[in-house]
């Protein structure tokens, strides 16, 4: 059963993705496209945080780097937008490697501290060199047009692009965390000392994980820029980096499928779920729930509750559920194989 | 007369592994009792069950009263001092700061009495405790525990890692505290000969159970104990 769980899960995900646009409006399709790109970012960050145990509070900036790469290439150099996507990943990945090289020499808290500075530094650098980046104003991208002779609504086309990328990157991540390298990642997470003693170069592993995660986030950022058709420094605030990490925790760090839940959360908590919860609260307490900041409070409280109630995230809950199911089933099995009956 | 410390049917486990299976023992006022046994017999766990640093079942009574709460700080406040394995010295603090920590629960600590027993501490008061020798650290731990004026002192392997001469010095001071100050002592030792020389009574533990008990003299003349723990 467990041998088939992964391919079956992937097939279910792919089917859901294929069917969804037929069931919902164009606007919701557009939103679901963002879920796809967040999935790419989260899967990448999960390789670093969930599988290697390195907390990063700065990966929103790598999305920013990917977004700016795409924008500058398209706007200033006339590239076709789709072809910039892999390059955006490479640029972000290389910068991630360069940052990870020194940063990953340090254990837990130091890395999280250093990464916390990346988003604010990124914004500062973007503002400092306006002739290259467009400064505070940013740059506008042309609307995405469907290719290959397809004529569909831009929202649908964006959805297709995002999810094709996501459904390619997802199994790639699975291959990365499954094999020998994946074992090295987990060894570093569980005990750096033991990993080193077993011949794993922790610095190299952490740096590589950092680079891979930055690559994923760069791709996601490129898609993000294409989706919203503009970039400016405020598009990638520190909140985005935090939100990505929150998505990891809520989805369940160290689980790839959990990231689907994480991505749904990242996309919807600010736009629909948060205000929904607030509406419920406001009916009870007559609060001004449209005030700025109220959404943040909701998502902070949700995060806190999850940490207390289900620290392993959505994936952890699903795992518990499966365990209960299989226990029930094995109970049935043992009753059949009762020695008195044999 | 109610004993100062009474354990009845105390069991404890580390996760799945049971370390104590119903240990019962007593220590009277002013008495020095040794707890002997091989590695893993449950000696340390017995002390830890008393001081609340391991979860236990069964009763621990101090002066006939059940402990209020089984947390280390509240047991310490009930007058039971536990010098743990490795001595629990704050190696980054100075000698004097370590002593002040010993007096943490006491409103007016009597440093003078302590310095009478450990006069050398005075000249080392500003030295970092981690730079003391092993024997000196053990003495500092003793002095620190005594400052709180406990009713019962529990020592875990005071001889561990010390040269024989230093061990003898440590036991001399412990005996002094026991005889002159009337301090009850429960000492865990692997070095049975040293412990039996100083203690009045002893218990021998094997795999989490008390297997032999008696006065120090009785145990010294017990053939099984002699071959197993005294080596002659």
């Amino acid at each position, binding site marked *: 059963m467990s041998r088939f769980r992964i391919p079956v899960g992937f097939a279910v995900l792919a089917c859901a993705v294929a069917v969804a646009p037929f069931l919902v409006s164009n606007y919701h399709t557009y939103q679901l496209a963002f879920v796809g790109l967040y999935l790419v970012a989260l899967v990448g960050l999960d390789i670093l945080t969930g599988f290697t145990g390195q907390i990063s509070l700065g990966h929103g900036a790598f999305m920013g780097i990917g977004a700016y790469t795409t924008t500058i290439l398209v706007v200033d150099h006339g590239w076709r937008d789709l072809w910039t996507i892999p390059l955006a990943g490479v640029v972000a990945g290389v910068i991630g490697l360069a940052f990870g090289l020194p940063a990953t020499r340090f254990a837990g808290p130091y890395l999280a501290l250093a990464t916390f500075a990346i988003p604010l530094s990124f914004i500062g650098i973007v503002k400092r060199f306006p002739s290259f980046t467009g400064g505070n104003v940013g740059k506008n991208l042309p609307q995405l047009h469907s290719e290959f002779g397809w004529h569909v609504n831009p929202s649908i086309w964006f959805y297709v692009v995002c999810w094709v990328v996501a459904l390619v990157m997802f199994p790639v991540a699975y291959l990365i965390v499954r094999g020998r390298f994946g074992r090295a990642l987990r060894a570093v997470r569980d005990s750096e000392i033991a990993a080193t003693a077993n011949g794993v170069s922790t610095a190299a592993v952490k740096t590589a994980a950092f680079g891979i995660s930055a690559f994923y986030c760069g791709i996601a950022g490129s898609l993000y820029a294409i989706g919203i058709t503009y970039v400016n420094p405020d598009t990638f605030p520190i909140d985005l980096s935090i939100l990505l990490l929150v998505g990891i925790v809520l989805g369940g760090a160290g689980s790839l499928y959990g990231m689907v839940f994480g991505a749904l959360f990242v996309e919807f908590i600010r736009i629909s779920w948060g205000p929904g919860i607030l509406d419920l609260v406001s009916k009870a307490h007559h609060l001004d729930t449209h005030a700025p900041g109220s959404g943040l409070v909701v998502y902070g409280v949700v995060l806190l509750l999850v940490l207390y109630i289900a620290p392993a995230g959505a994936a952890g809950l699903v795992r518990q559920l499966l365990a209960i199911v299989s226990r029930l089933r094995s109970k049935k099995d043992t009753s059949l194989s009762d020695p008195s009956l044999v | 007369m109610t004993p100062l410390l009474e354990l009845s049917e105390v069991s404890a486990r580390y996760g799945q592994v049971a370390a104590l299976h119903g240990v019962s023992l007593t220590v009277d006022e002013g008495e020095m009792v040794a707890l002997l046994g091989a590695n893993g017999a449950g000696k340390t766990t017995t002390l830890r069950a008393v001081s609340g640093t391991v979860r236990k079942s069964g009763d621990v009574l101090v002066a006939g009263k059940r402990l209020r709460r089984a947390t*280390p700080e509240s047991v310490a406040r009930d007058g039971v001092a536990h010098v743990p394995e490795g001595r629990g010295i704050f190696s980054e603090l100075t000698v004097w700061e370590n002593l002040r920590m010993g007096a943490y629960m006491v409103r007016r600590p009597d440093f003078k009495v302590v310095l009478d027993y450990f006069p050398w501490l005075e000249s080392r008061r500003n030295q970092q405790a981690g730079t003391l020798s092993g024997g000196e650290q053990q003495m500092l731990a003793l002095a620190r525990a005594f400052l709180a004026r406990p009713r019962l002192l529990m020592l875990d392997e005071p001889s561990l890692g010390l040269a024989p001469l230093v061990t003898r010095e440590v036991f001399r001071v412990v005996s002094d505290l026991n005889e002159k100050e009337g301090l009850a002592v429960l000492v865990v030792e692997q070095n049975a000969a040293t412990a039996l020389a100083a203690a009045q009574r002893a218990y021998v533990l094997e795999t989490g159970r008390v297997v032999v008990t008696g006065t120090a003299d009785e145990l010294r003349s017990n053939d099984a104990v002699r071959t197993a723990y005294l080596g002659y």
Partner: protein
Amino acid sequence: MQQFFQQLVSGLADGAIFGSLALALVLIYKATEVINFAQGEMAMFTTYISWSLITHHGFSFWEAFFATLLIAFVGGVLLQRTLIRPLERASVLTTVMATIALLVIFNGLAAWIWSPQLQFFPSPFPTTSWVIGGVHISKQDLGTFGVTIGCVFVLWLFFRFTKLGLAMRAGALNPAAARLLGVRTSWLLALGWGFAAALGAVSGMMVAPTVFLTPNMMQAVLIYAFAAAVLGGLESPIGAVVGGLALGVMLNMLGTYVHPVTSELRLPVALGVLLVVLLIKPAGLFGRVVVRRV
């Protein structure tokens, strides 16, 4: 030369603010190995409280200052007892995420309660300066430096000379041994959160007059404080303060004498410094040597 001294003094004033927030981080980190990412937002939130006391409740600056210290202290203790303590046995990721949740909540609450608009925060110091030998020294800078370092000094006295302060240090070094001596370490951790919150409040109230009060005003300061704490070795209280002062002076000097370093590049430069320091000395400039002697 005149410019140099002026920059030195404003650098020290900035640095004292970084240093006090860095010290708040170190206090909690030393005792629990948890980095409190909400430290900056807690400082911001308490600064709003003092602002509200001054503008809406008729407090003078100094009345509000001390009232806020008290509120911050109590708030810090309560936070630890109610939200952080239940996570004692949780993984590092979970605990870090809890402090991040607090960061998000405080940031949102401040905007919710007081609106995200810029607010003017009064300064207790005059805007004039003293002229000493042709050098203008701003009273604002000197006052900021004095108050912040004064608070740090009071805290140092507490840790050095009181029984409770000693117990807190001992509890951070070896909690198991401290408990065996009758120390209620769990309450001392809460006390540590209280002190850290109060220190953060000092840094917030000192920085607010120059940067204006907004819910995001402490984000950059927090990163400078991180850099300062890392410079100092994360475990050394003195290192954190000295690291803060060094960073403040360095950033001001770079901004004055190195043309391409404009205000936008202050943060990236701080990040660069942090990375270089960590590369050369992974344990920070003050390593462990100082820690052991404190």
